[in-house]
């Protein structure tokens, strides 16, 4: 069969033209079918990934800001709690002191009242006893005198007794 290894004539130009057309067709087809869609897809994916990384970074910084904010709030809460506790403690202290002092006054009042009552009762008892002594002694002396004394002696005795009674100090 006829053939050639290398030639430089009109036929070469025709062959070159055919091969140029072939190459163009192949490049066009491969570009349309494979290269363009795939590069487009790859670029879109690259952009999407870059976007996702950006948004992830933005979200991270947002989250960090939120975290710092909440940490601050927590700190505030701690100090507030402490101040409330402090206040409550001080209030409780004041209250307890008040209660104790109230109780003390009350107790003192009760004590004084009881003492006055006791004194009054004592006075009463003293008067009663005085009266009873007078009664008993006048009864006894009346009987004795009636039996043994003259009127003169009797009067003298009565006077003595009375004056003596006046000098007696009752012990509580």
């Amino acid at each position: 069969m006829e053939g050639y290894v290398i030639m430089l004539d009109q036929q070469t130009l025709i062959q070159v033209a055919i091969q140029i057309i072939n190459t163009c067709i192949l490049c066009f087809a491969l570009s349309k079918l494979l290269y363009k869609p795939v590069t487009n897809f790859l670029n879109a994916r690259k952009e999407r990934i870059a976007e996702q990384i950006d948004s992830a970074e933005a979200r991270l910084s947002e989250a960090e800001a939120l975290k710092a904010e909440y940490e601050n709030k927590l700190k505030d809460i701690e100090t507030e709690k402490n101040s409330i506790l402090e206040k409550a403690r001080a209030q409780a202290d004041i209250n307890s002191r008040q209660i104790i002092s109230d109780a003390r006054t009350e107790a003192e009042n009760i004590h004084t009242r009881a003492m006055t009552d006791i004194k009054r009762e004592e006075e009463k008892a003293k008067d009663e006893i005085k009266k009873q002594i007078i009664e008993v002694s006048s009864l006894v002396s009346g009987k004795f005198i009636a039996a043994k004394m003259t009127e003169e002696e009797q009067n003298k005795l009565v006077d003595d007794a009375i004056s003596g009674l006046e000098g007696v100090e009752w012990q509580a």
Partner: protein
Amino acid sequence: MGLHLLEVKSLVGHLIGWNTTPAEGLDANARIIEKLHFGSTEVWITETVVNTWIFMAALIILAVILRIKMKNYKNKPSGLQNVVELAIEYMDSFVKSAMTEKYAYFGNWFFGVFVLILVSNLSGLLGFRPPTADLCTTAAITFTTFFLIHFMGIKTGKGGYFKGYLEPLPFLLPINIISELATPISLSFRLFGNILGGMIIMAMVYMALGSLPGIAKIFNIGVPSVLHVYFDVFAGCIQTVIFVMLSMTFIKDKIPD
């Protein structure tokens, strides 16, 4: 049939003499499968063109299948999608590193060129005659590069592009023009020569191995594989990368910063 000095001489003479007669004994020719006639113009359908069509069809069908399979691109790639993404991302970063981010759209063109050259270079493994072992193919691809170099030069450089031919001194204009013309010639012949050379060496090796007597035929096992790995896989991949990288660099060179 042995490999004789006469045949090597015949091949060299065949290459230098520009004739289209096949070298006897060693067949490195691109066959002419059909001769079509359009009026007075004769158009050959050669082995190169037919092979190119086969690879084009295979690549386009593969692309369609991949496209259908990847109809629903997933954000988390798996399996096939990984492979496709890897290949395209490699090409994308290759273009971006050679031509900067701004001209990343050249990836659309160079992806096709890269795949075509790579598949052509590797097709020797499957017994095809690589289309890149034909100057017509490499010249065609280089012509597009040549066109892009000067199109981008004029488009982005405006008047500076033409002024560039008079620099550093006006009388260097002829040399500048020659250097511009040398670019596509060196590009196309580099690829063509490498692949054709590998192909011829492989043909010679197969002939030599075929002529081995008796037990020495054992060398038929393994020896060709090692050489195929070097001439087809290694040289094929390297030449593909070199061709595409040089093309991109030449285009970028014409674009002023």
